[in-house]
């Protein structure tokens, strides 16, 4: 059984809806800037990728009052994805509609406000909605209720890796009878307390210039910019939709050994297992959407893994997340959306920022998009603490016809 992605709902710092997002991404337009949601000028990291409030304007007031911004972004992304898929949930048996999302840090701004009310005032000041807005399951629950979806409902947490894990669980839900799954993830980590929490990871940049703050694989990389938003996706069994974006071909995840154990990091194993699960060789992967941590040690581990599997400069690598910042649970979901758009349009979107450190021996697609014949894309995501996820996405039949390269596509089918 083949799982295809039929709808994409992007809510990103550099574009709402996949058309606007894709245009911005190909043009190298960044959504990163000084954080404006609150006065972040006193913090070491004061940059972020913020989503325009227009993205959530369609969330009804009644729902907005009982949800955090992260859930509102998820609800908005879901509407976009369902419309894009041309899927009317009311036409499908509710028990065969599933919702499986990723979250990394839950309802940050809502939660901070209510804890403040409790401590600055009294228990009576805490909102009746705190119990349903702060916890990690809020988005899945609200999406399921809004669209009458009564199939398997799940929530996974694996920091930045969670988006791929959710997609893998979505495919599993199709195997056990679901007809369509709303999946993906969003994140809203730009409240003061959440930002201060993130800063303690030591992975946030302290750069002040948005154009140059998040520079993965650069010799002087010094952390990432946090961002909000993500992408919701509709995953279905092949057949209904006339023109799906592509196929989920294979997935694997591994976990790194405890630091100091002397055992090697396991990202490379995740990549090999994902290729194996997808029944493709490394030669059949035409582009890699990198995790691109922007931390030298992590960039080295990722480039080592890519070199081990693909050889030096062996595969085009890109990190469009340089235009959004890292979106945590929304990040890998958005990377999947970007990879699918890339497969559909047969063009690799660029990474913005400086050239990579030559020691990494990466073929990084820099500044300008690169047309190419793209049969399969590999998406990598790593979650803080040691989570490694790798997913292979395949182009939809027909998308590689007439593409740029003269030697033609070598399509393999599941």
């Amino acid at each position, binding site marked *: 059984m083949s799982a295809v992605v039929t709808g994409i709902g992007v809510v990103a710092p550099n574009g709402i809806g996949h058309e606007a997002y894709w245009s911005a991404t190909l043009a190298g337009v960044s959504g990163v800037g000084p954080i404006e949601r609150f*006065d972040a000028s*006193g913090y070491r990291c004061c940059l972020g990728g913020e989503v325009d409030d227009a993205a959530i304007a369609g969330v009804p007031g009644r729902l907005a009052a009982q949800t955090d911004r992260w859930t509102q972004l998820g609800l908005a992304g879901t509407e976009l994805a369902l419309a894009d898929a041309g899927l009317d949930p009311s036409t499908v048996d*509710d028990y065969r509609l599933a919702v499986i999302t990723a*979250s*990394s840090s*839950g309802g940050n701004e809502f939660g901070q406000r209510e*804890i*403040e*009310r*409790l*401590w*600055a005032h*009294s*228990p009576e000041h*805490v*909102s*009746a909605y*705190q*119990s*349903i807005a*702060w916890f*990690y*399951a*809020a988005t*899945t*629950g*609200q999406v*399921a*209720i809004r669209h009458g*979806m*009564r199939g*398997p*409902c*799940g*929530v*996974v*947490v*694996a*920091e930045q890796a*969670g988006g791929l894990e959710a997609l893998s*669980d979505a495919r*599993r839900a199709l195997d056990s009878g679901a007809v369509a799954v709303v999946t993906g993830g969003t994140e809203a980590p730009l409240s*003061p*307390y*959440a930002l*201060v*929490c993130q800063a*303690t990871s030591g992975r946030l940049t302290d750069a002040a210039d948005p154009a140059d703050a998040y520079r993965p694989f650069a010799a002087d990389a010094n952390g990432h910019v946090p961002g909000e938003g993500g992408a919701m996706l509709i995953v279905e069994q092949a057949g209904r939709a006339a023109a799906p974006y592509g196929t989920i071909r294979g997935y694997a*995840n*591994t*976990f790194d*050994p*405890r630091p100091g*154990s002397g*055992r090697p990091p396991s990202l490379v194993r995740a990549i090999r297992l994902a290729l194996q699960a997808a029944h493709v060789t490394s030669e059949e992967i035409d582009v890699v959407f990198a995790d691109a941590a922007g931390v030298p040690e992590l960039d080295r581990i990722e480039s080592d893994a890519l070199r081990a599997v693909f050889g030096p400069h062996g595969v085009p690598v890109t990190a469009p997340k340089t235009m959004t910042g890292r979106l*945590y649970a929304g990040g890998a979901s958005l990377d999947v959306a970007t990879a699918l758009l890339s497969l559909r349009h047969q063009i690799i979107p660029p990474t913005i920022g400086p050239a990579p450190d030559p020691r990494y021996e990466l073929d990084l697609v820099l500044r300008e998009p690169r047309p190419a014949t793209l049969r399969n894309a590999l998406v990598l995501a790593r*979650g*803080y*603490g*040691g989570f490694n996820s790798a997913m292979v996405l395949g182009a939809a039949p027909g998308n590689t016809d007439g593409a740029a390269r003269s030697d033609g596509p070598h399509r393999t089918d599941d």
Partner: protein
Amino acid sequence: MTRRVAVTGVGVVAPGGTSRKEFWDLLTEGRTATRAITLFDAAGFRSRIAAECDFDPIAAGLSDEQARTLDRAAQFALVAAREAVGDAGGLGFAAPERLGVSLGSAVGCTMGLEQNYVAVSGRGRHWLVDADAAVPELYHHLVPSSMAAEVAWEVGAEGPVKLVSTGCTSGLDAVGHGARLIADGQADVVLAGATDAPISPISVACFDAIRATSPSNDDPEHASRPFDRRRNGFVLGEGSAVLVLEDAATARARGAHVYCEVAGFAHRGNAYHMTGLRPDGAEMAEAIRVALAEARIDPSAVDYVNAHGSGTKQNDRHETAAVKTSLGPRAYEIPMSSIKSMIGHSLGAIGAIEVVACALSMEHGVVPPTANLHEPDPDCDLDYVPLHAREQRSDVVLSVGSGFGGFQTAMVLAAPGRAG
């Protein structure tokens, strides 16, 4: 499921005892561990009672650093994982690459998040919190996946590691997803369980705000009264349970002690209300039906139902209806009890703790009781095993859970060889 999944080790940190033996003694004696809150000064709150763990991280074997930097929920999980691994006879037989973790938690490290918030905000006075007052481990509290990472490091897992957070069904779901990792061949051994430590001001306040918790502050020992007509809300709890799951064929080959097999698992959403339940229990009934079908076990073969039994009127009626719908007339003959009557409702953790209770029930041939059930709600007319444990051999056990967000989960546990 394609490969069968055996439970070969269990570990528990629960109110009333920090080991599976103390836990089981409490349940079979029908004692309650609910009491006035001691973890913080609860004056001013509507519900001032909870089921607390008497837990000393150092005495439980954790290091000074773990005791200082890990959230209480992460500490619970580590201690429960160690006990489970010991019970399974160690994990030396498992390759790190084939060893996974599936941990559930509803509210993650909220205790650590709240305590640190108080410090960096000047007790809620500053919206722009003070970054210089933040402790280095604060990011671990923000992302609850850090707890799954801790368990993975503890046992040396380098296979699939995940944190499942589906509210109050997190525990059952985490065990179910862990079993799937084995059934589908992604791992051979999985540490599966859940943890939560929500007895802190913000969690107590948010349940106060919707009057979900019991206000029986004058009589905490009898406050958790599932299926009793005088029930008035759930009693918050805390704790963790972790199980060692392994490929049943491997377990048999190495001569491991097998408590039971995870034979079926299904979860559904009610698409109805974030905190409300449809009175007919349709979605829970559907989850039960699908879980039994996966196990290839006929509904008439169920010997015991471990209820969600939180002690709210809507829940008790909802799941009573769900069990009648899914098990048919025999529902009246099958004992169905709620251990939340004794150890409270530890949100995401409780589902895993209840799976351990089911495994021990099958092991010892004893069904735990529903404590405090003196006057059954006339609308709840099943056999809820009031007050006293009952000797009964069970080959097929059903455990159900229900949670905020509309989540409904069912799991079928079966004696080895019993599932189809």
